[in-house]
Every structure is written in structure tokens, then in C-alpha cells.
């Protein structure tokens, strides 16, 4: 169903059920934060899990998406749909340029180049006038979605974010299970062989990168709208690091891992907020335990234990 395996379809239903039920139990704004982080991590997972490239600068696309959505909402009073769409386009356009420069390398070199390019984006955002520098873009109005959904209501906003997340999630799933996705898997498995079959592998990797960045930009734009703010944190390398943590913790290369990881990490940040700087220490400790004891991540371990594909 929907191209899912049986176990994946059941997991998908559970996830959708949780998305529907949770806002009646938990604080919707917290849940929206989880969903934005989850979409971001799913997009990141497309690169690391299915192309085998670790992008260490995904905050650049997240942050630029966030700035563009915030700016166009605040100054042009666009429809939220358009503003988030522009955020996605910004991510894609930036991904095309930076990806073009980085894609010819792999492994640690790819990670370092993407990190370096993302740092350049960070300094651009620090200096450029439209980002508001240290202040960021604040008091961004949520406006309306498609002209009729008033997003100032938290619940309405929540359903929109939920729809964006599920839409993005299914899009990524489709990309992985498309003819294009088959070639991507081939490249991940054995790139020289894919080349010898006549595939220009760089082109495939670049398109996957642009798609990942587009969805990342959408996640960033949605986040800006939810919190009414776009700041330097969004483009900071710690955000790039956090998405790596989320994906590894949830289960790299699994379909549901990134969402699970986003839930765990965001919950920690939220509920351990009183602990202040200790959150980082706890996160670091959990990360070490994860790498040492359960490398497949939460979902990856469950899948391995129950012999399922998740």
C-alpha cells in the first residue's frame, strides 16, 4: 500500500494516528517543533541514508528557507502557502549551487565542503541587512494559508504543519521508491559499477541533494511560521549537528527513524530545558551510548530485532 511494505504501512498508520491524537494531549506548539525537526531529519536522511553522503551543512538550507519565509510573510504579507513554497525554492536553489560544488567529492571531503559552504552562508546571514543580524527576523505574522485558514490559531496551524510533514514524508518515500531511487541505491551500493552501466552518477547525486535541500527549506520555512521568528540559530552549524544526531539516534537509512529521533531530541530539549546547559551534556552522553551500544538507532534496532523493514 502506497508502496510501503506491510510493516511499514502499519508503522505509518501508527504515526498518523499519533499525529492526530497528540495535540489533544500535548502542547501543540511543542508538537509542531517536533514535526518541523522530523521533516528536516527525513530530508537529511535522504542524503545520508539513500545516497550515502553525509552533508554537514544542512542548516544552511534550513536557515535560508526560514529567513525567506519569515521575510516574505513580514514584508510582502504573502499567503503562508506561497511563503513556505518560496522557502523550499530557496533551499533548492541554494542546494543546486552549493551541491554542484560539493557533489564531486565523497566521504569526509563531502562533509567538510558542505560544512565550509554552510559556514559561508552563516556569515552571509550575519552580515546581510535583511536577516536582521543578531536579532533575526522577529514577530513574523502567521497569516493565512490558501486564503482561508487562519493560522494564528494554534490548532489550525498544527493541522497545516501535520499536513506538510506527512506530504513531505510521502514525497521522500516516493523518491526512494521511484526508478530514480533505484539508481540512487545502485550508486550507494557500488558507484563505479553504476558508472560502468552508463549512469552519470554525479547528476543523480546532485538531483537527490537538491530535493533534500528543497524539503529542508520547507521545514525551515514552516518552523519560522510556527514560532514567528527566523534567527541565526537556524543557519548555525549546531543545527547541522543536531540533525545528524536526530537521524543517527532514530535510525539512519530507515524510513521512520528520523521522525523518532526528532521526537526524542526535541522532547529532551523541551522537558529538560530547566537543566540549562546540562541538556547538551545529556545529549552528548546519549549520543555516545547510541554510537557504542545501538548503532542502528532506535528504529533500526527495533527493525533488526523484529526482523522488519521500517
Amino acid at each position, binding site marked *: 500500500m502506497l*508502496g510501503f511494505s506491510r510493516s511499514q504501512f502499519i508503522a505509518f498508520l501508527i504515526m498518523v494516528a499519533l499525529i492526530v491524537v497528540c495535540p489533544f494531549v500535548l502542547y501543540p506548539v511543542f508538537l509542531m517543533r517536533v514535526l518541523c525537526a522530523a521533516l528536516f531529519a527525513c530530508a537529511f536522511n535522504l542524503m545520508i541514508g539513500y545516497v550515502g553522503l553525509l552533508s554537514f551543512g544542512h542548516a544552511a538550507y534550513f536557515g535560508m528557507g526560514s529567513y525567506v519565509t519569515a521575510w516574505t510573510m513580514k514584508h510582502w504579507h504573502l499567503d503562508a502557502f506561497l511563503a513556505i513554497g518560496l522557502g523550499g525554492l530557496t533551499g533548492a536553489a541554494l542546494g543546486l549551487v552549493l551541491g554542484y560544488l560539493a557533489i564531486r567529492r565523497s566521504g569526509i571531503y563531502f562533509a567538510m565542503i558542505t560544512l565550509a559552504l554552510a559556514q559561508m552562508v552563516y556569515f552571509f546571514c550575519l552580515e546581510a541587512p535583511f536577516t536582521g543580524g543578531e536579532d533575526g527576523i522577529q514577530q513574523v505574522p502567521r497569516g493565512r494559508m490558501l486564503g482561508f485558514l487562519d493560522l494564528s490559531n494554534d490548532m489550525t496551524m498544527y493541522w497545516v504543519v501535520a499536513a506538510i510533514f506527512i506530504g513531505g514524508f510521502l514525497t521522500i518515500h*516516493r*523518491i526512494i*521508491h*521511484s*526508478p*530514480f*531511487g*533505484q*539508481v540512487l*541505491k*545502485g550508486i550507494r*551500493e*557500488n558507484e*563505479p*559499477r*553504476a*558508472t*560502468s*552501466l*552508463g*549512469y*552519470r*552518477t554525479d*547528476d*543523480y547525486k546532485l*538531483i537527490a541533494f537538491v*530535493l533534500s535541500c528543497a524539503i529542508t527549506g520547507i521545514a525551515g520555512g514552516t518552523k519560522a511560521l510556527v514560532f514567528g521568528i527566523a534567527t541565526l540559530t537556524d543557519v548555525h552549524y549546531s543545527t547541522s549537528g543536531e540533525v545528524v544526531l536526530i537521524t543517527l539516534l532514530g535510525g539512519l537509512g530507515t524510513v521512520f527513524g528520523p521522525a523518532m529521533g526528532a521526537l526524542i531530541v526535541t522532547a529532551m530539549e523541551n522537558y529538560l530545558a530547566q537543566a540549562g546547559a546540562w541538556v547538551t551534556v545529556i545529549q552528548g552522553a546519549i549520543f555516545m551510548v547510541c554510537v557504542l551500544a545501538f548503532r542502528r538507532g532506535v528504529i533500526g534496532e527495533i527493525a533488526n530485532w523484529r526482523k522488519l523493514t521500517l
Partner: protein
Amino acid sequence: MAANDRSDIILETQGLTREFSGFVAVDGVDLRVKTGQIHALIGPNGAGKTTCFNLLTSFLEPTRGTIRFKGRDITGMKPAMVARLGLVRSFQISAVFPHLTALENVRLALQRARGASFDFWRSESTLKVYDDRARALLNDVGLSGQEETIVVNLSYGLKRALEIATTLALEPEMMLLDEPTAGMAHGDVDRIVELIRRIRKGRTILMVEHNLSVVEGLCDTITVLTRGRVLAEGDYAEVSKNPEVIAAYLGSEHA
């Protein structure tokens, strides 16, 4: 060399040279492969056979020299382009996609016929049209019944067979096989030899091979390389009588 025998040359190199920071791996090789033949490239370890393959398929760029395939200069072309022209290679270590099924492996090659398949919005089921052809190819190389097996679980011999099936799926005019029987048990060797004999129809094969009994029974022309240079060329009978070749390569085995 008379100009009139050029028409039946499918692959030709002139002065093909590759240097690695001072070390000359391939040194002025003039190679001519005739259409429809099985041509072997033999020589002791480090003779430059694999480097030659990498040069012919553009995985490496030559320092000097030219490569012509079907009369067209392909020197410096992108490796994917060379493959599309019909010159497809295999690798010394078995080149499969280990965590995909055997069927998916072959399908990845068949899928190439769709052109650049960048359609990320379409369902995988679009690829079902290739399943029958993929099954037939797997059957051809003795892999029927293994379609859904994840390739990493196949035996070494079967992986090599799968690799040939994948290469055949592209219907290449010319195949370059890098040690197709290396590291194989006897039964597997015979099967691969049989397979190569069957697939040669309508194509040209250039192969690197260490196993001389394989070369003897299979190949029409043999080129012997040592230290990056062509030492001798001819059929098995000629080459195996060449005193230089015996000294350099066959000596120990024909003592």
C-alpha cells in the same frame, strides 16, 4: 600495417601511456581488437592489464595516446558516455549491488535504456516492464530461482555470473571482462567459460585472464603485456612458443 584491415577493428589504441608520478604503468601500448573476437590480455602481476582496462573505459585518463572505438576517438570521454557507446566493462572484484536483489541488479542495467531516469515522482512499479527480460537474463546465466535473493548472500561464482548478466543487459557491442574466473573453484570456472562462449555471438570480448587453460580454449588473439609494454601478440600457439614470453611469463608453468 595495411590500411585495408581497419574496417574490422572495433577498438584501437595508439601509444597509450599512463604514468603515476614517475612510474609508467602502461607504456606506449598499441592494441587492436578485431570485431567479433575474444581477445585476451595476459601478463604477470603489475604488467598494467587492469590499468589498461581503466584507460579503455575512461575510468583513468591516459597521460598520452589515443583510444578509438568503432572509429570514433573516445579519449578523455566521460566513463558513463563510453558505456553508452557500447563498451562496457566488468571489474576484478565482483561488481554487483550487494544489498539489492538479483532481479533489481539486472533491472538497473535494463533501466538504463529509459535514458536518464531522473523521474523521482514515478512509482517503482514502472520498472515492472523490465522484469521478464531480467528473469530471462538471469536464467541465461544459471541464476533462475535466485531472482529475489539479496545478492550479498549469493556465492562468489553466482555473483560473477550475475555481473555478466547485468553487463549483458546493456547489450554491449564490446565487453571488457577483468579476470572473470579469478578466485573461482573448478566447476565455476567451467561454467563461466561456457557462458562466455555462449554470449560471444555478435559481440567482441576483451578479457584479462590469468588462467591459461581458459585463455587457450577460448581466445582468438592474445596480447602479452609486461611492465606496461606489449611483449607479443598472436594466437595461443604463436604466443606460447615465443621465447621472450616463456621467459617473462610462461616459464615456470611450462618448465
